[in-house]
């Protein structure tokens, strides 16, 4: 899975345009696999029933990946985050028109989407006055961070440091009252200084991965810091 992550770039997908290759199509698919949930959260706010929201999300991705929608995307359309939502809105409006003729479940399943898990998360999600667009953006950030932490976890596993990840991941965001470095160090059977150093390395790697992951969804490296600020602002709504 890791190689796929590294090679997948939104900018490459968009540059491939009409001459999409199997690689660029696969790249798009891998991006969709990470970021489908925010879109589903959006659909749940837009579509009256759960079943219909699931159908429309599934149908959208089938359509999105099949029809090579990206061919119509021009580089100035910008970030993947914006493009995906714009495409979905477009799809939704056509969907309302065609609703009568579209049979339930008629859409072909291209991505296997775990709606059951998604709904267990969404049902208790406080939507606190957010617009569907804001909800989409917030869920986007959470999907993005989840992706990064999964990669951190995978990397730790590969290096045989799963226990370190488990104990120290909380320290990525800073010190807290839950447990001290000394307690964690004891549990991990290492010195406090080594635990600190390990947490610091993890934090550093987290920052790298965050930039790497965001770079996949924007058009150029110069947009990364800007997007980080945007996403931070999204969470503070």
């Amino acid at each position, binding site marked *: 899975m890791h190689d796929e992550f590294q090679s997948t770039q939104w900018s490459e997908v968009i540059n491939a345009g009409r001459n999409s290759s199997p690689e660029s199509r696969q790249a798009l698919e891998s991006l969709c696999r990470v970021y489908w949930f925010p879109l589903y959260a959006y659909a749940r706010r837009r579509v009256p029933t759960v079943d219909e929201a699931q159908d429309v999300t599934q149908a959208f991705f089938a359509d999105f990946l099949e029809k090579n929608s990206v061919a119509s995307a021009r580089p100035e359309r910008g970030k993947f985050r914006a493009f995906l939502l714009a495409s979905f809105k477009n799809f939704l409006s056509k969907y309302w028109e065609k609703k009568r003729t579209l049979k339930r479940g008629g859409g072909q399943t291209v991505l296997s989407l775990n709606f059951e898990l998604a709904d267990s998360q969404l049902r208790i999600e406080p939507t606190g006055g957010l617009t569907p667009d804001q909800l989409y953006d917030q869920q986007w950030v959470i999907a993005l961070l*989840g992706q990064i932490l999964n990669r951190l976890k995978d990397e730790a596993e590969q290096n045989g440091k799963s226990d370190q990840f488990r104990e120290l991941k909380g320290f990525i965001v800073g010190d807290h009252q839950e447990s001290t470095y000394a307690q964690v160090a004891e549990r991990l059977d290492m010195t406090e200084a080594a635990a600190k150093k390990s947490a610091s390395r993890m934090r550093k790697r987290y*920052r790298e991965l965050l930039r790497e992951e965001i770079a996949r969804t924007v058009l150029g490296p110069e947009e990364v810091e800007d997007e980080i600020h945007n996403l931070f602002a999204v969470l503070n709504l």
Partner: protein
Amino acid sequence: MTSLKTCPTCGEELPSNAPSGICPKCLMQVGMESENQPRSYEDPRVATVDQGGRFRLPELAALASRFPDLEIEDLLGQGGMGAVYRAKQIRLDRQVALKIIRPDSADDPSFAKRFEREARTLARLNHPNIVAIYDFGDVTLTGDDGAQQTLYYFLMEYVAGANMRQLMQGGELNATRSLSIVSQICDALQYAHDEGIVHRDIKPENILVDVHGRLKIADFGLAKLLTEQVAEDVLTGTHQVMGTLRYMAPEQMAGSHSVDHRADIYSMGVVFYEMLTGDLPVGRFEPPSKRATVDEQWDEVVLRALEAEPKRRYQSASDVKLDVEKMTSDNLVPSPDNVRPNDKVRPDARIAKPSQASTINFALITLGTTQLMLGLPLVFIALMVPTQLVFFWIGLGLTLGGAGCCALAFADGARIPRETEPLYGMLILGGIMGFIGTVILISIPLTGHGFVNFHSNNPLIWVGGGLFLGGGGCSSIAWMGEPAASEATVRKS
């Protein structure tokens, strides 16, 4: 850990799908910080930022090791942009102030260049009312994890005293001291503005007063250096700059690119208002004299400095000083600080102009009314006696010329404020008397035997002449206004 409902770091509620059970907000916060930024976790060797977004300073020892020429004594204060330490420059054996800039404020690839350019400009400022900059540069701190952090600093003149906020809170500002402060702020700003430097962040915290009562403005131009960051901080709320916003000119708050020295004049107006009333001029505010026992003369000065439209404000700090000194020269003894050898009181055009203008206006009014007094009766008589049509044309010319002259004088008089108000009722009475007198006088030779009619037995001569002279006298007294009344307002305080 994943079952926790609130984030142990920031205390906010965790969303149910928080990635690996970690607070997404905190994750993004940490992610935003680059290697050169303050850490959100404790590391005493570098500058950090605590959960409230407050700047936590590196340990004194860690900092001191980077400044071998200084003996860093203690922390003087901490603001939105950084922190200031009191230090001793060992070799020169003098007290200095060391200001370090928040590392996240400097997190911008172009910062180093801008910092150097601005610091050089600021170091050129040499004025007794401006905190002098001795040196500037950057040092590198190394954290626990070996990561490096660059801290930018200024080495500045140390001012032993208090800032204006402290003076206001301590109730230590009496009328004389306030005047001295106003005048010194004006001097400092005028000097800097002449040098092309706008402060951009005038507020009581930046105005220091030393033990001898001498005022020093600190942090000139720093706001410009950090503008982009500050703007961002307002948006993301990462640190407290709202205090500063209250002193900002409207055009500055709107992010206008055309902010000039007049923004400082506005901020100065806010400081004066606060100094006089203890309140900030927010929303629809009352003039200072309505809020506190302050001479009404302050109202005009403060309100003009606080005009929302830069064009309607005072156009220079020295103008403010002139108006303040003018209004106070009668009833308040200026403090000795007011008079210093290097005061840059320029021969200002505004002093010469009004008196010149009023001389010109006086001549215009005299000429205008004379013409009107002759012209109007001529027209009137010519209409009564149709054979004398030539008088009609002469009269009409004189009337139009006179009206023009008067109009010019009045228009100019309206532009430049008069010290006295003309007595309009008396002016009209005088005009009517003069008009009737002139009609009578001119009509004398037109009837009966021509100029033979001019002899002392003719009562018309006395009546006409009396009315003419009386009307003229009346008008000129009315035009002068009532000087006694305005003197009374000056003395009232």
